[in-house]
């Protein structure tokens, strides 16, 4: 066990020494891997943020119910209590017509128009959220509400929800495809770098074999080299996405505010970061392994 640890430590040190022996080369390799990985990592970051955004208030799909303009308040209260008891309804918010009027009057452009009108043109309205907000369930609720007395119009904003949903699905697929492609790219980079390493250290490999080294002993420093390449590239990718998050944060918040939403762009979370580094190291190892199969012995 102690011997095993010592041999791994030695292989790791040797790999580090070899990385350090050609610092410019190593740095460029890490940068190439890092940039390749930064694309899917950045995509994952944006996706996580979009999901989070979708999870905040406005992105929850809602049903808007408008009463008839001449309906009495009593009719609205009745609907409200009915909604409150209705299965599948999560939350009901009444928007009284007076409030709506006041809110609209606050808008200087609309004030004159509204004041010219003889009566309050706005009906009482409800905003309803559902426990099951799948498009199908929402549609079913809307159909139901349309039957209720004095209800004039029921609006389902599921079109928007569907669009967002589809967009997120597309995003997820894109990140996965990108991750797959660039992961394969990483394996290829590691493969060819390790091939160069084997060629560079031919003499050492041959001497080690003659002195009784096992294949595992000979492969170990090369494998560590591959892991370090992947891991280093992963760290570069992580730093790049972090920097991009910082850089995009202000303009994106601005953009999102235009839609009445709020978002502070977050870099990769702990789980995604760990995944990124783990995958990068693993793929570096895999590329090295395949390369050694081809180029040793």
């Amino acid at each position, binding site marked *: 066990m*102690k*011997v*095993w640890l*010592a*041999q791994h430590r*030695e292989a790791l040190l040797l790999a580090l020494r070899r990385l350090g022996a050609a610092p410019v080369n190593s740095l460029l390799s890490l940068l190439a891997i890092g940039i390749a990985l930064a694309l899917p990592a950045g995509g994952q970051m944006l996706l996580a943020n979009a999901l989070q955004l979708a999870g905040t208030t406005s992105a929850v799909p809602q049903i808007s119910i408008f009463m008839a303009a001449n309906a009495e308040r009593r009719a609205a209260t009745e609907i409200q209590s009915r909604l409150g008891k209705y299965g599948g309804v999560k939350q009901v918010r009444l928007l009284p017509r007076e409030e709506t009027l006041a809110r609209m009057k606050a808008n200087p452009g609309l004030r004159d128009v509204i004041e010219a009108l003889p009566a309050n043109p706005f009906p009482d309205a409800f905003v309803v959220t559902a426990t099951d907000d799948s498009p199908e369930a929402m549609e079913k609720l809307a159909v139901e509400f349309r039957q209720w007395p004095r209800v004039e119009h029921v609006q389902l904003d599921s079109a928007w929800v569907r669009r967002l949903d589809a967009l997120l699905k597309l995003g997820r697929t894109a990140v996965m495809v990108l991750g797959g492609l660039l992961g394969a790219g990483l394996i290829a980079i590691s493969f060819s770098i390790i091939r160069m390493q084997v060629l560079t250290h031919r*003499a*050492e490999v*041959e*001497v*080690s*074999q*003659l*002195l*009784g*080294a*096992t294949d595992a*002993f000979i492969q170990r420093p090369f494998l560590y080299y591959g892991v370090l390449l992947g891991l280093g590239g992963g760290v570069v990718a992580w730093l790049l996405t972090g920097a991009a998050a910082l850089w995009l944060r202000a303009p994106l918040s601005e953009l999102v505010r235009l839609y009445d939403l709020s978002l502070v762009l977050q870099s990769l979370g702990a789980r995604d970061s760990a995944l990124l580094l783990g995958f990068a190291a693993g793929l570096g190892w895999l590329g090295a392994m395949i390369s050694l199969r081809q180029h040793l012995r």
Partner: protein
Amino acid sequence: MIRFDRVSKRYPPGVDALSDLSFEVAGGQMVVVSGHSGAGKSTLLKLIAAVEKSTTGAVLVGGQNVSGLPRSALPYLRRRIGMVFQDQKLLFDRSVFENVMLPLSIAGFPARDAAQRVRAALEKVGLGNREKALPVMLSGGEQQRLAIARAVVNRPSLLLADEPTAHLDSETASDVARIFHEFHHVGVTVLIATYASDLFPGAKRLQLDHGRLLP
């Protein structure tokens, strides 16, 4: 210790390097393998360490037929044999100390005792004060002694050396020869391929001629 039983070695294009060779070396013996260039001396040593495999016949080392060893068993055979290669095979990007350390690392020798072993081996060949030097900074004789130190650091009971005194002036050559005599005197079985057999008086002779053993 070593027994060749009707051993022949043919290299791929059809060169017969060794033909129908039979001999025996007892444990603790010192043997000089001599012969013209191309006689098959290097091939004979390579067969013992299973660097090459015999085409026919058995090569027994410590009772084990090494010609039939699977690849996975080779490391353990080689760790029991010290080898000084004709072209030395030193690692030029590693210090003298690290070159001698390599066989111990390979064998998984505990680190603390390993450093002592390395120093002892370097002392033995007179390189005690050159630990940190790189091989290029050494003279030809010193490089040869470094190769010997690396071969013996594992304390093998069998030491093989291929032309260890080639390219050395006569004084340096006899220094190097003396080192082999010392190992012989402490019981190590020593096989040396060389033209300069007079440097090893008292050794058993195996004379090769075009791959055949002369009587």
